[in-house]
């Protein structure tokens, strides 16, 4: 039981770390906002654009952080409920007078001292179904990690709705002149028809096999490709480990 408590403490410290990240993220976001405004004031639109995007990435990172923090809170709660066996929807109360406990005093805690039959400090497997699967510890579909599940729901159809909303930025309003549209569209037909060639030089012999993978022509610097999400990778690994360790403990306990 000691190791489970250690796990709970570890999860709690990870949760604290995750929570502590909130302030620096908010700080950097403000800073980026300020810098973007300055760049825009100076007329350096490209720089401002990059800074705005970095800000967007940070906002996504913050939302991942909130999800992660929630997941860790949940994980700790599950560990603690496994330790105490007295919280959570699946836990049975021991009832008046400790009715689920053998009255002969054979049940002891890890250090060998007798268990007070009036407390709930009895491992769940002694009080409940004698062959639990361990799934009750995770509380979710075991094939999907809790983070993945919550995250995916939060992201549902975001790209499409964004494109529809932000696409309005391209709209020419009633006062705008668009007298080029026919001319431009007509000349573009040649690009679309004669010059469109997605698969490369046409296959002349039967030996050549088109790969379907166009070569990358543009070797651009990746400096503007800021991924604030990387900040979390370490913590996420720890969290994934915690979940895995938890289910192992669950199984071990069942087998033993």
């Amino acid at each position: 039981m000691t190791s489970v408590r250690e796990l709970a403490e570890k999860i709690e410290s990870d949760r604290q770390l995750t929570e502590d990240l909130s302030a620096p993220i908010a700080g950097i976001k403000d800073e980026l906002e300020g810098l973007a405004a300055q760049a825009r004031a100076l007329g350096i639109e490209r720089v401002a654009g990059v800074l705005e995007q970095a800000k967007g990435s940070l906002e996504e990172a913050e939302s991942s952080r909130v999800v992660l923090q929630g997941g860790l809170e949940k994980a700790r709660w599950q560990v603690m409920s496994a330790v105490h066996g007295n919280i959570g929807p699946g836990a049975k109360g021991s009832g008046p007078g400790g009715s689920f406990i053998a009255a002969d005093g054979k049940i002891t805690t890890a250090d060998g001292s007798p268990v007070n039959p009036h407390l709930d400090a009895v491992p769940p497997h002694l009080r409940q179904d004698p062959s639990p699967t361990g799934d009750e510890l995770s509380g979710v579909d075991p094939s999907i990690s809790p983070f993945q599940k919550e995250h995916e729901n939060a992201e549902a159809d975001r790209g499409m709705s964004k494109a529809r909303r932000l696409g309005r930025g391209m709209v020419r309003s009633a006062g705008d002149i668009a007298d080029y549209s026919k001319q431009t569209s007509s000349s573009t037909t040649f690009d679309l028809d004669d010059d469109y060639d997605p698969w490369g030089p046409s296959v002349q012999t039967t030996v050549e096999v088109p790969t379907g993978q166009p070569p990358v022509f543009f070797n651009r610097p990746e400096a503007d490709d800021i991924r604030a999400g990387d900040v979390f990778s370490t913590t996420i690994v720890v969290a994934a480990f915690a979940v895995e360790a938890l289910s192992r403990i669950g199984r071990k306990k069942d087998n033993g």
Partner: protein
Amino acid sequence: MADYPLFRKIVKTLALGEGAKGRELIAEMRNEDQREYANYVSAMFAETAGHILDKDHSLAAIKKLVDEMAYAYRKVDPPFKPMAMEVLFRVLFYEGQTLDEVSPQDQLRFQLMAIRMIVDKHPEVFAQLDTFLAEAESLALEWESEA
């Protein structure tokens, strides 16, 4: 009321790469409809690009798509502008992205080029092209009503 049925026909032929037919239809367009036509193309661009980048619209995914276009359109003259294309995609997914750097003519040209490639390379878009064209009309009308 602009002639949206004609817009749909034009964009459909262009998306399918039927240049000669497209030029005939474009010639039928009333001059005063050109602004709404350009907006309709933007709406179709938002629908198709929004569809294929729905799940992943990271900068990496956008760059990959732009590189694909740069390859498919490597023969065009005047040349394809990857940076301008990237800006057009970014506008759809990132707040605060400005279009100032891309001329209105380039916007229209590269949007049409993107639509054509997406329809060609994505069978599910090709199969439902008429649905996409109709959705684009709803979106364009929505934009017009709010403009």
